[in-house]
């Protein structure tokens, strides 16, 4: 799309949004006095609604005039929220994740810029580093959700294996050279059989997408245009494929399929891989494996460091009668006080940088008796790239997952696969 076309599209889009009476840039006008509870929807397992409720109780103690009713939706969350919105049910605050712009693209949640500036929230301070998920939750200049929970993709490594190989532990200073060197030295072979892999990853998007961004590539450029077959992206994906098929330091899909319970996380947990990249959630489950001596480190880079931020945010539904009060709620919840139960109740890593860096988080005993470098999460804040979220995120994932299958199987090289994928992405974003 030529630039002038993009500009016209942007103008038309914002006009359309204003014609729809919301979405784009709402005037943060005074909301009426609250006469009914603001409904807040969340997903998760058993602990999650308890933590949200504890946080809301803190809010209630200070703001009794703004009652919030928690609506916990354990399954089919997006579908049910969409149905409720379509049915005219008055929702106010909704938990969102990578699908945030599925809502914003349909005008189902409102832009928060005016509320943020009116409340004087310093987003850079609140989320630290590169701004956490603020960039990802922003679409066409409008922030659509306040980042709430999350942590970075970090490197889990087996300390005993590193020690045995006489290698320094993974660090932010690594480039692919040091990474590959370590992976090769950590791989234990017995003839043609690999007994321990130096590294384990696969076809899940955070794994390979991190490598693209580490190499200065991207999926979408700053204007939202697909750039999946840039030289940087091709080089990165070729390196990623080579880890499996050329250097043979990481398992192939067939290797995983042969293992019964295959996949990087179980392979790392079983001591069959020295390095594996995953989110904060693995800390708890790995800490239960007594004989496994492991730690975590921030990811590294090649041309620059890069990592993925996972998480969820809190958005305001367009149908909410009390948007100003709703923002007050999510401002509180994502602030230091409102975020603290995420840590004290051992739910997750908070998006709030102050809390993520706090002793409360670092010493919460996430890994039981094990002393884990939880600072790796806060140390990842300045290398997190802005996820290429858009209203087409789900469709984009389908196109990528569909067309990169041969790359992961080793039957097509990176250039061929990405050259096939790029025009399909362009079609999607036309």
């Amino acid at each position, binding site marked *: 799309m030529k630039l002038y076309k993009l500009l016209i599209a942007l103008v038309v889009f914002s006009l359309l949004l204003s014609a729809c009476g919301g979405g784009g840039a709402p005037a943060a006008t005074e909301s009426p006095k609250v006469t009914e509870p603001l409904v807040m929807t969340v997903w998760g397992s058993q602990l999650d609604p308890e933590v949200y409720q504890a946080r809301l109780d803190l809010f209630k103690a200070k703001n009794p005039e703004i009652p919030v009713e928690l609506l916990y939706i354990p399954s089919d969350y997006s579908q049910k929220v969409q149905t409720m919105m379509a049915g005219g049910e008055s929702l106010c605050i909704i938990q969102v994740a990578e699908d945030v712009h599925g809502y914003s693209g349909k005008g189902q949640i409102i832009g928060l810029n005016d509320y943020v500036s009116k409340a004087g929230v310093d987003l850079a301070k609140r989320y630290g580093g590169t701004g956490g998920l603020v960039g990802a939750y922003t679409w066409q200049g409008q922030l659509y959700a306040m980042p709430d929970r999350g942590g970075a993709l970090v490197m889990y490594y087996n300390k005993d294996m590193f020690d045995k190989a006489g290698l320094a532990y993974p660090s932010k200073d690594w480039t692919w050279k040091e990474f590959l060197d370590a992976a090769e030295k950590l791989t234990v072979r017995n003839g043609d059989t690999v007994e321990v892999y130096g590294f384990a990853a696969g*076809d899940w998007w955070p794994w390979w997408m991190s490598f693209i961004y580490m190499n200065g590539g991207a999926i979408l450029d700053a204007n939202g245009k697909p750039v999946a077959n840039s030289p940087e992206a091709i080089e990165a994906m070729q390196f990623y494929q080579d880890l499996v098929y050329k250097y043979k330091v990481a398992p192939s*899909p*067939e290797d995983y*399929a*042969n*293992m*019964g*319970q295959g996949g990087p996380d179980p392979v790392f947990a079983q001591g069959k891989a020295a390095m594996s990249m995953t989110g904060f959630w693995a800390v708890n489950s790995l800490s239960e494996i007594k004989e496994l001596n492991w730690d975590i480190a921030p990811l590294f880079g090649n041309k620059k460091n890069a990592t993925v931020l996972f998480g969820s945010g809190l958005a305001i539904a367009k149908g909410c009668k009390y948007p100003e009060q709703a923002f007050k709620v999510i401002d509180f919840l994502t602030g230091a006080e409102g975020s603290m139960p995420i840590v004290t109740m051992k739910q997750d890593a908070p998006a709030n940088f102050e809390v993520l860096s706090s002793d409360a988080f670092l010493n919460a005993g996430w890994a039981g008796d094990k002393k884990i470098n939880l600072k790796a999460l806060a140390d990842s804040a300045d290398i997190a790239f802005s996820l290429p979220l858009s209203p087409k995120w*789900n469709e984009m994932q*389908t196109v990528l*997952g*569909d*067309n990169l*299958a*041969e790359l992961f*199987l080793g*039957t097509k090289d990176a250039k061929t696969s990405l050259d096939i994928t790029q025009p*399909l992405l362009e079609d999607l974003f036309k």
Partner: protein
Amino acid sequence: MLSFLAACMNKPNLPADEIIINPDEKHQTIEGFGASAAWWAQDVGGWEDEKRSRIVELLYNRETGIGLTIYRYNIGGGLADNIQDPWRTAETFEVSPGVYDWSRDANAMWVMKAAQAQGAEMFVAFVNSPPARMTVSGLTTGEKDGKSNLKPEMYDEFAQYMVDVVRHLREEEGIPISYISPINEPQWDWNYTKGQEGCHYGPQEVLEVTRALLHALDKNGLSDDVQVSVFESGEWKKSQVYIDKLLKDPEVAPRLPHLAIHSYWSKAEDKTPIVNFLERNFPGTKIWQTEWTEMKEGRDTGMETALTLANTVQEDLTLGGVTSWQYWIAVSRYFYRDGLIYVNLSDRAVIETKRLWALGNFSRYVRPGYVRIGAGAGAADITVSAYQSPDNAEVVVVVINNGKKPVTAKLNGLPAGMTQFGQYETSGAESLGEVLKGSIPPGFTFPPESVTTLVFSK
């Protein structure tokens, strides 16, 4: 992308009161609809005649039941002490290597023959686990770490065992088994703790079991009559690694009639990449959907699960392009959303579900040999698929109304010369009931939450 576009065709830019079919747009040829007799037939087959016959009639009779044509017979791995539920373990005919007791599994045999008498014409013999003696763990539930449980030296013996059973069924029992399925959901980590028969295989192991079975069929002179149906993938997602291994093999690939895939857990976005992967790498590969049931707790006999089933069948036929669609256990005793028919063991009650009749909206009318043709609907709540008989004398249109309001629509694109018409409905009020018959009306009404079959003939 082809299938992506095809999926879009189901919502063409049509007015909400229009359904369109296009007989010139020809898709796959349907091979039939079926269900599995696993685990229930071995019990229910011994019940009083009135009840067991009624169950078989509901499943296989084309006039009074839903007219399934495919019967899936489970070659059991042998009754296992470590499986608590008797409806999760099955007898094996094998007494010792090469020695069989053909009087075993008599109840299941009764059901299979009754189904044949009622209209079953295609028989698939499938295996969940090799007999215990051929396994690494000595158990039919899997290897301790969820790896392959078939002993490496047992591939040929396992293949010969399956061929022996199938030859007996064909030659002595008169059941024309035409497919053997040696593997079931190989990607899962079947291990000691599982409560049912199962065996994990990696891609190369799947290939080698298939090859061994083909060799055994050749050696026993059965290759012309019996084909190998593999690999019963537990879901669509991530099955490329197995597909690639099978369809790249120069010996095995040309002899595979189709790929067998299960639709459990599978959404449209999981099916499309597999269809596209086949289109890019192995064009022309046929797909059978060979197991599905809704994986949810609780009994439901009403339209909620019937719609889930009908939408799954419709999506598999249109988006997935499957040539056959087969249900998992046809009869359930559980408090689960499985079974087309529920039974209570206490009083041997036989309880029909709307799922049964909604599957009948397809199976009774979309017969083997029918070709799927283009179809689309304008109304948001409507999905549609259409089929034409091999002699072009009949057109069948299956319409699902997922909405809570009735939809009235006209139908365009019907070939000239169609004069007769029948409308068959499964809804809150009807169980594949004939609601209209005679000359073709100008428009059709589809009640809320209903599955309707329109049959047009010359």
